[in-house]
């Protein structure tokens, strides 16, 4: 078989409208195993590709000898930096990362050479045979030293600083205020998507290349690849292959240029699949953060001023660090009225693994800190922590830390109340397997204490700071059949379902064809990230469908001599409200109609020198209440229940919404108690699922949805807000808050490790 099996999201779906739990159109291929993920692609003549990576976090490359690798039987190509045809570097914000390292490596795992061969075993032997001479240098691994250390990159070690100053700087310079201070740390989380980085590149007759790859942002990938190949973008054609999860890790390039280089060099299709170990080294991670905070409040709990210093470790290359620190800084104080603030947000370069986008994008880190601060403040004020939050809750009309006035919806108080007031279903089970420690049988009932806490968080939806974001879509209607073309990357979130719901809503059809997602013939849909696709690509699809609707109606109005306003599209027909006309849509569209649109949101502004500006389009808030059981002497934890309320604007698809809220909460639980990429001297110590632990079904509690608050967002298609990120923002903070409640310990760092609880308890026992 010489065909490439492309993604199965192409297909017919039988949707219904907005607000219904319509089934995903790709569910059946996914449950039968027929759905083609990027690692499932095959081509008869294909070769296998592989990557040689630097073992050192910091070194100069003295020499690379590929001769012994080329000599291995079955090897078709061994390429290095000198084989990169076009621009040597790439990057999302700065073009600071080499396609293949030439003279220096800056992180352990940085690609140095690539191989194409006839079998994965041959690839491995060839990689082992490549001789690289490194002159190891001392790595910069402490982010707090980065700004003063010798630059490890020509662009310097400071990736971005934002110093946000808001309101009256002397607001806290008076008597009678209560002040609390704390320093917090968030470890490096990994997206840990299940589908490994993978793809297939096929050299084309026109000298170009067709790349089938799992990604989040096709057109930005295409542009970077074309630059690095020294080619016209039209010659680089990306098609989205099935994506096995993303969560931010596929926004940057990984194997894209490498695969294309190997395919073009060998003249053969080339497939590459990262192992899990390689995957941990092959994509960016969530920025680890150290955060110092000081909150000042009136004795009645009114917040007066927040000061903070945020230090994010960006690792070796910039990726999207600039945007991450902006988010962390803008949302540093949480969804509360803060009339005065001084937030210094810095992201630096080190020889640690590169960090970039991960679901929550800076707000996860600061939420952990600001919620810990709010609880600290509540204790200092002898005030109920929920009352303290309600007292300061932001509401429309309030001004944010950036000076921007909230003109859209933001039901902070409603989210808090509904979550706090939702009855708990948590019981105390007699079953030993349900206690902390699970099958390890370490705890009896009287070894376990229970804790509870609530946390709230918010962040922006969509891109910010004046970024000209857009999404393109095409709607074609012929013989009653609608085809939608949109390059929005489906990564599991369910946009493919939404397309059908929108067309059903607007055009009254019960069937829609989804064109393959590719760069050819359609413009960018932007990134599947920042909780933006329902708004942007949903908006584009809606707009395109509405233009087609208008054209159909105009046509029938003329042919049947009725006013345009009298006509509606419903259930595959064009009908007049007055009842005189009823035309089969297929008949009316025997002559095809189409519309090509580009959707944009209202423009935003950059942040000025003081971090002030109308930089964001929209915001969403969520709250979680966590109930945890702890075995303090062993430090083992079981999350018993999570309850959540979220500000969603409008529920587009209830079952998919629940799926996002439950899944995001699981990632929040993971960061709270078990997930951390352990980096020692710049090297990852736990690049496997054996030791990078994500929650199993025995670790995740049920997630109770207290309320999906629907206050339609002005300007948003269908009034709907993106829902992907908030679930992993306040969940971590709630779980660690509950652990503090159970143990009485400060727990200033996540993930909380068993030793953090057990040894502190032991010390406290000794001290007693």
């Amino acid at each position, binding site marked *: 078989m010489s065909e490439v099996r492309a993604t199965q999201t192409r297909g017919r779906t039988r949707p219904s409208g907005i607000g219904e739990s319509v089934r995903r159109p790709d569910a059946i291929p996914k449950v039968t195993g027929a759905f083609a993920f990027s690692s499932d692609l095959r081509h008869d003549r294909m070769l296998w590709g592989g990557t040689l990576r630097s073992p050192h976090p910091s070194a100069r490359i003295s020499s690379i000898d590929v001769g012994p690798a080329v000599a291995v039987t079955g090897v078709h190509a061994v390429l290095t930096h000198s084989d990169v045809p076009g621009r040597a570097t790439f990057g999302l914000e700065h073009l600071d990362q080499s396609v293949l390292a030439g003279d220096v490596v800056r992180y352990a795992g940085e690609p140095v050479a690539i191989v194409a061969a006839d079998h994965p*075993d041959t690839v*491995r032997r060839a990689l082992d045979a490549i001789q690289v001479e490194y002159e190891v240098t001392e790595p910069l691994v402490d982010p707090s030293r980065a700004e003063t250390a010798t630059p490890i990159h020509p662009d310097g070690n400071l990736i971005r600083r934002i110093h946000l100053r808001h309101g009256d700087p002397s607001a806290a310079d008076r008597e009678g205020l209560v002040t609390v201070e704390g320093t917090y740390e968030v470890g490096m989380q990994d997206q840990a998507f299940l589908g490994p980085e993978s793809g297939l590149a096929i050299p084309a007759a026109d000298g170009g290349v067709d790349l089938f790859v799992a990604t989040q942002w096709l057109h930005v990938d295409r542009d970077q690849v074309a630059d690095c190949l020294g080619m016209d973008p039209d010659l680089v054609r990306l098609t989205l292959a099935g994506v096995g999860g993303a969560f931010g890790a596929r926004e940057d390039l990984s194997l894209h240029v490498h695969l294309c280089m190997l395919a073009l060099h060998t003249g053969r299709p080339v497939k590459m699949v990262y*192992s899990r*170990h390689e995957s941990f080294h092959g994509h960016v991670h969530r920025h680890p953060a150290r955060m110092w905070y000081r909150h000042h409040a009136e004795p009645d709990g009114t917040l007066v001023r927040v000061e903070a210093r945020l230090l994010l470790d960006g690792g070796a290359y910039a990726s999207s660090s600039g945007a991450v620190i902006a988010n962390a800084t803008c949302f540093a104080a949480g969804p509360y009225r803060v009339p005065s603030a001084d937030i210094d947000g810095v992201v630096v370069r080190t020889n640690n693994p590169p960090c970039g986008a991960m679901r929550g994008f800076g707000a996860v880190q600061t939420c952990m800190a600001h919620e810990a601060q709010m609880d600290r403040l509540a204790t200092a004020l002898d005030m109920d922590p929920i009352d303290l939050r309600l007292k300061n809750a932001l509401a429309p009309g309030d001004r944010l830390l950036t000076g921007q006035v909230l003109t859209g919806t933001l039901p902070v108080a409603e989210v808090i109340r509904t979550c706090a007031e939702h009855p708990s279903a948590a019981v105390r089970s007699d079953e030993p397997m349900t206690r*902390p*420690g*699970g*099958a*390890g*049988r*370490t*705890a*009896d009932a*009287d*070894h376990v204490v229970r804790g509870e806490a609530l946390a709230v968080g918010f962040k922006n939806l969509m891109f910010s700071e004046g970024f000209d974001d857009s999404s393109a879509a095409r709607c074609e209607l012929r013989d009653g059949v609608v085809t939608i073309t949109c390059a929005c990357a489906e990564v599991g979130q369910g946009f493919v379902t939404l397309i059908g719901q929108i067309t059903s809503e607007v055009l009254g059809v019960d069937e829609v064809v989804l064109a393959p997602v590719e760069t050819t013939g359609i413009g960018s849909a932007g990134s599947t990230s920042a909780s933006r696709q329902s708004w942007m690509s949903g908006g584009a699809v809606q707009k395109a469908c509405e233009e087609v609707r208008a054209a159909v109606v105009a046509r029938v109005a003329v042919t049947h001599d009725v006013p345009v306003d009298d006509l509606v599209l419903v259930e595959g027909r064009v009908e007049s409200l007055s009842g005189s006309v009823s035309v089969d849509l297929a008949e009316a569209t025997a002559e095809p109609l189409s519309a090509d649109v580009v959707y944009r949101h209202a423009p935003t502004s950059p942040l000025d020198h003081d971090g002030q500006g109308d930089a964001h389009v929209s915001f969403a808030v969520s709250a979680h209440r966590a109930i945890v059981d702890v075995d303090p*002497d*062993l*430090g*083992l934890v*079981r999350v018993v229940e999570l309850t959540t309320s979220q500000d969603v604007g409008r529920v587009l698809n209830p079952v998919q919404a629940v799926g996002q809220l439950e899944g995001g909460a699981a990632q929040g639980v993971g960061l709270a*108690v*078990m997930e951390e990429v*352990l980096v*020692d001297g710049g090297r990852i*110590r*736990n690049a496997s699922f*054996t*030791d990078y*632990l994500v*929650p*199993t*079904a*025995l*670790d995740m509690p049920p997630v109770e949805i207290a309320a999906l608050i629907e206050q339609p967002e002005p300007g948003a298609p269908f009034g709907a807000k993106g829902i992907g990120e908030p679930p992993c923002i306040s969940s971590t903070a709630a779980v660690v808050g509950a652990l503090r409640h159970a143990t009485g310990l400060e727990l200033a760092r996540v993930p909380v*490790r*068993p*030793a953090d609880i*057990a*040894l502190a308890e*032991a010390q406290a026992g000794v001290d007693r």
Partner: protein
Amino acid sequence: MTMTIALTLDDACAALAADPTATVLAGGTDLMVQVNRGDHSIGNVVAIDRVPELRGWTREGDVLRIGAGMTYADMADPGFGALAPALGQAARTVGSPQIRATGTIGGNLATASPAGDMLPVLVALDAVVELRSSDGERHLPLDEFVVGVKANALSAGELIVAVRVPVLHGHQEFMKVGPRNAMVISVASLALVVDPSGRTVRVGLGSVAPVPLRATEAEVMIGGRIDWEGGRPPTAGDADRFGQLVADAARPIDDHRATAAYRRHVVGVMARRALVRAFGMVGEEAA
């Protein structure tokens, strides 16, 4: 590459005699991880997962003879669990249902990982490992079989056929600490088995030394304190002291999974709790 799928023990031994360097393969749950990574190159293989003599268990008087090919899933059998409760408990903590379906006790022995879940129980039970080659048989006590980190005393051409443990008619506990509620490599583990007729309490420790350890001083101390005749429970003071001695017996290291300090601490906690489960306690509340 020759694949020998042995159907009898003699076949397996003969194949190994013909190529003593051949890889012995039962469940493959340790070996295949290395093969998939490219860290182990497969040559000739002798697959022993279809040898009936290696499956199952038999009771010979007060000795339980466990076939090396017995899987962790097999150990869920209540009849087996009644004879070796701590082994049954330990088996349930290994990996996942998928791993338990094919992983074997023989594999756990051969891999000889410091974190092997069977090993603390086997060392507490003074297990004896039965080895066979075409040259004959030998029996090794566990502490002469597991000789170092991932090091065993197998000679070339030799196979683990069974492990023998005593049937003790007292309480048995197995506990394992890991940072997740399922599918974890043990950070520290403890087996406590009571031998009422021998009037001993035996404690096996895992993941706190290069090899599974006995906490001998703790055993001696508590053995002398237990009221074997009258059944009066130990005191809180006894339990504390016992826990401390067990903790002192541990020789843990710092690694990416946990610190030595944490490992030592939790071993002491588990010891105390296991003792209280076995005997109850008088004095202050069990903590």
